[in-house]
């Protein structure tokens, strides 16, 4: 194991606690100290805090493997997937954790990314549009292997919301469809199964809440844990849609 952590270091966590549904609750940073163990991730650390120090601390994890997109948090200012964040990455042992802005706060570190993503998916009609009925007993439609790979690249978005939280535009303007939404449109634009034309996509995102609202801050590109080519695809969609007559 190449984890080079000194055993037994004391870590100080400063975590924002707030329950907006409890009138008595006031937002405040609460401090916890924990002894570091080898290979400790924030998934392990937060669970340890809940198991031993504060049973009332709320946060979301599902896969704890960086696959499901549940655990986006703002850690020392950076939006990250908590389950993939090692405590060893913080040499001074001080870790501040906040819930992601841009999303409805449920409690403490738990935010409602699901709700946001569902609204976004419905808004960009994130499904295949086609009138062709394919017979499922017959051979599948042939798809160029490269095109399939490219579509897959864009389909890898896990709806974690880190890009939304990093994007100043999305924070400033809650109606902005966001980088994940723009990527989603690019994904279906790419997919040969989807018969929508660029004019159809223009109807969905051809305004200042859509593609023309993006100010090219590129924080999305720099914080996406799946390394999606957001910069490239947003530019691509912009070129496509600005060319619409």
């Amino acid at each position, binding site marked *: 194991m190449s984890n080079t952590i000194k055993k037994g270091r004391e870590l100080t966590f400063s975590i924002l606690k707030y329950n907006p549904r409890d009138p008595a609750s006031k937002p405040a940073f609460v401090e916890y100290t924990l002894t570091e163990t080898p290979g400790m991730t924030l998934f392990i650390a937060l669970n340890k805090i809940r198991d031993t120090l504060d049973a009332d601390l709320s946060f979301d994890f599902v896969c704890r493997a960086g696959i499901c997109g549940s655990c986006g948090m703002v850690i020392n200012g950076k939006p990250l997937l908590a389950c993939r964040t090692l405590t060893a990455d913080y040499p001074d042992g001080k870790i501040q954790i906040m819930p992601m802005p841009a999303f409805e706060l449920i409690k403490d570190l738990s935010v409602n990314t699901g709700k946001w993503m569902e609204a976004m998916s419905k808004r960009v009609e994130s499904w295949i549009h086609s009138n062709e009925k394919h017979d499922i007993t017959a051979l599948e439609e042939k798809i160029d292997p490269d095109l399939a790979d490219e579509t897959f690249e864009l389909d890898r978005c896990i709806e974690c919301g880190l890009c939304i939280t990093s994007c100043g535009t999305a*924070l400033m303007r809650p109606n902005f469809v966001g980088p994940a939404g723009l990527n989603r449109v690019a994904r279906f634009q790419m997919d040969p199964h989807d018969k929508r034309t660029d004019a159809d996509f223009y109807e969905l995102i*051809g305004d*200042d809440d859509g593609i023309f609202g993006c100010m090219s*801050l*590129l*924080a999305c590109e720099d914080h996406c844990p799946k390394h999606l*080519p957001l*910069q490239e695809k947003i*530019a691509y969609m912009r070129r496509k849609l600005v060319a619409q007559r």
Partner: protein
Amino acid sequence: MRSLIEGYLGVTEEGRKSRLPAKLDWWQSATGLFLGLFMWGHMLFVSTILVSKDFMYTVTKMFEGSFIFGDAHSKPILVSITVFIVFVIFIVHAGLALRKFPSNYKQYSIMKTHTAALKHEDTKLWFIQAYTGFAMFFLGSVHLYVIMTSADKIGPYGSADRMVSDWMWPLYILLLLAVELHGSIGLYRLSVKWGWFDGKDAKATRKKLKKAKWAVTVFFLVLGFATLAAYIKIGLEHKANYGERYHPGTSQSLNQTTTYAIQGVLS
């Protein structure tokens, strides 16, 4: 009827979404690109003073149409017209860019907190761009108005006098900083916004563009300040002769003036 429907509903008469947002975005970039590239030319032009007064004079005259009308009958009005056109583009660009500004305090406060917390270079750059853009509303307008209305004064002495004796130098320092930061960031942003140089590896390209962007910023800032220094120097020297026009080949008189000026100061 068309505009009434589209204006209120954001939908064209064919029932499609208005194409206007696309056009506005395009025009914002087009005006930005024009201004950005124009400023490269502009900075090279004013910096001709670093070569020599004669050279600066010749180039100025050229812009006034000396190659057609001859040096003596050049027409400064041509410059005024050019400035007017640039002014219009400048205003259009500023108007379009306004769409991107925080539109209330809450938005501003979110953006400011976010920029400080995230420590993300491109986000910071945008903030700088917004700030400098805002500053240029005023700084740029003053400069353009002045140049437009007294284009005839442009020249080695006229410009220098304007800087020193007309107290334009503080404005120019600020404007220079603003426009160089704003312009180079803007051109970088344009490239990534439209994916012009993406090529095979957009991420690698972006890194290179970022380097180029900083190189351009530094280059033009150094050039600009050197130019500014040169004009200030001339302006100081020429203070006593405020209003005098430059005549090529007459640097002799300048030397004399300088001597007088210095003597004046010393005595």
